[in-house]
């Protein structure tokens, strides 16, 4: 009875919301759906897991060092007898937190600069030259240099862990906003010429409200796509820096740092590099698939094909 009622209601008023269309399209992309499930799964393990698996990743049990997988330590232990599973979860927290925060910062910067450049003609030339300049900088060398130079200062200012975290998020965020800015600017330039913008300007909407009410919601889709790519990029950059020994300190594990530490024992315990490496790779892969699906779902040219 209720089923019929619901069905007839749905038939009477077919839901034509944009987000539902989007979801319908997104669902057809199998890789994206799988990627999203996997990413949520990783988030769950990494942030809820430590409450279930209560071994401390910092606890040194020298008698249980270099063990293979067992019931007490499912992924084995490292050269100091620390439990690999809890270190992986702790490392994942840092890696994902850096990835997501850095992505948020770079999106904020990119959107701000993109909207400013697209909306205000006077700023356009200046901001786009700035973007070009940033694109011409050799990013990885510069990241390394910045971290080498400012690591100690920030460490003394904020403590070893928070200091490096702030530095990482800041440098990754400040060196990855350019693509977002370019895409957003292009979209804003196109939307600015549309009739609804003209209409709302004619009733005297101030620029601030125009941007927040009319422009931003319409450029949300490219921003969402760059958000996923931004997370993947930030996770890889953070692990690369940690892998080069210029990231987080050794007693503060991240996936990249764990991989770097395991390479010292490559000959004796080659399986140890597998877990952090797989964690990075699968997470990035799943995020990239979500990005692919998002792009397909948000692109009206592909939709319905």
């Amino acid at each position, binding site marked *: 009875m209720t089923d019929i009622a619901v069905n007839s209601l749905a038939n009477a008023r077919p839901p034509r919301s944009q987000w539902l269309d989007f979801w319908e399209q997104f669902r057809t992309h199998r890789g994206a759906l799988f990627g999203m499930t996997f990413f949520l799964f990783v988030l769950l393990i990494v942030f809820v897991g430590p409450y279930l698996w209560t071994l401390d990743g910092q606890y040194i049990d020298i008698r249980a060092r270099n063990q293979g997988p067992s019931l007490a330590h499912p992924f084995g232990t490292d050269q100091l007898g620390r439990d690999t599973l809890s270190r992986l979860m702790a490392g994942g927290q840092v890696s994902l937190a850096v990835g997501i925060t850095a992505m948020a910062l770079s999106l904020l910067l990119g959107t701000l600069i993109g909207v400013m450049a697209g909306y205000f003609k006077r700023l356009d030339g200046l901001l786009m030259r700035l973007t070009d300049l940033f694109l011409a900088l*050799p990013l990885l060398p510069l990241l390394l240099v910045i971290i*080498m130079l400012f690591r100690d200062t920030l460490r003394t200012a904020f403590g070893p862990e928070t200091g490096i975290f702030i530095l990482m998020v800041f440098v990754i965020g400040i060196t990855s906003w350019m693509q977002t800015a370019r895409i957003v600017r292009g979209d804003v330039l196109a939307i600015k010429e549309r009739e609804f913008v003209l209409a709302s300007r004619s009733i005297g909407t101030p620029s601030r409200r125009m941007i927040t009410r009319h422009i931003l919601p319409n450029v949300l889709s490219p921003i969402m796509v760059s958000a996923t790519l931004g997370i993947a990029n930030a996770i890889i950059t953070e692990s690369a820096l940690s892998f080069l020994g210029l990231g987080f300190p050794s007693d503060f594990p991240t996936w990249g740092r764990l991989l770097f530490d395991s390479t010292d024992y490559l000959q004796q315990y*080659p399986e140890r590099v597998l877990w952090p*490496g797989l964690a990075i790779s699968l997470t*990035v*892969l799943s995020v990239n698939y979500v990005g692919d699906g998002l792009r397909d779902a948000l692109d009206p040219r592909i939709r319905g094909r």
Partner: protein
Amino acid sequence: MFNYTIRRLFLAIPTLFFISLIIFLLLDLAPSDPTANLPLTIPPEVREKIRQSLGLGEPIHIRYLLWCKQFFINEPLNIMEQWFGWDIAGDRLRVLSWQTRSPVVDLIVQRTPQTLWVVGMSYVVGVLIALPIGIISAYRQYSWFDQVGTFISMIGFSVPTFFTGVLMIVVFSVWLGWFPSIYDTTHQVTDWASFWQQIRQMVMPVAVLALFNAAQISRFMRASMLDNLNQDYVRTARAKGLGERTVVLVHVLRNSLIPVVTVIALGVPQVFGGAIITEQVFKVNGLGQLLIISIQGGDLPTVQTLTFIFAFLIVLFNLIADVLYGVLDPRIRYD
């Protein structure tokens, strides 16, 4: 087109100067002292003299201009002297590394061949793999080949090179023992046996970088082919009765290569940057490794010069990509 190239070249000069200024200021702002690692027993006045001898006594603008003079005037003159056997003006001040006290440019010249061999080879291999994969994937869209190819390329650019590299070392040198895990730069190719040895040690670093590059380029190739395959001129070519081979490999391929060529050009400097990690994994002592060592040693002149050279490569290849685009595609008019 020629005018455009000239204009872009002139625009590149202030950009490069600005970038070098940014790098210089960044290095200078940093609160690091090159004498900090020296023993504490050195008296302060000697320490001050060491700082002076490193050229740190001058104010910042003098030091920047000095670096510019050394890098943009003295070093090219030196290179020209070496090439043509000239002798213009004897001793010139060169950019000296703080670690080795030898000219930075000499260090770079020593390191470049290794980087070019490994990185250059991997880029060529990557492109050669990527183009056929992209073409076939696009031509047989949604076939099993396309599915597998897309999946592999997704993996190729999601899995970071420092993991694929380490994984290859585990499999091929620890377990199977086929290839050496460390790249021996002192190795000299004299006969077939040493040539074979050289190939063996190059296989893994080249494969790692080639997989990464091929993944990106094949995606571009596929997308670009797909864009062109649905165009009207393809239907016209088929209607004229041209063979399928001619249609795809001549008409479609030539048109879809235009954006791919520019992407390949744009990727070259990024490869140099990305090779830093691969060189670290396989212990290739190329440019990337030089950068890491100098960063860890606080050797600012080397870091400054190397970073600037990376920036120069980016600007140069951006320019090449833009000009190529204009040359290859007659629809693009810059004037």
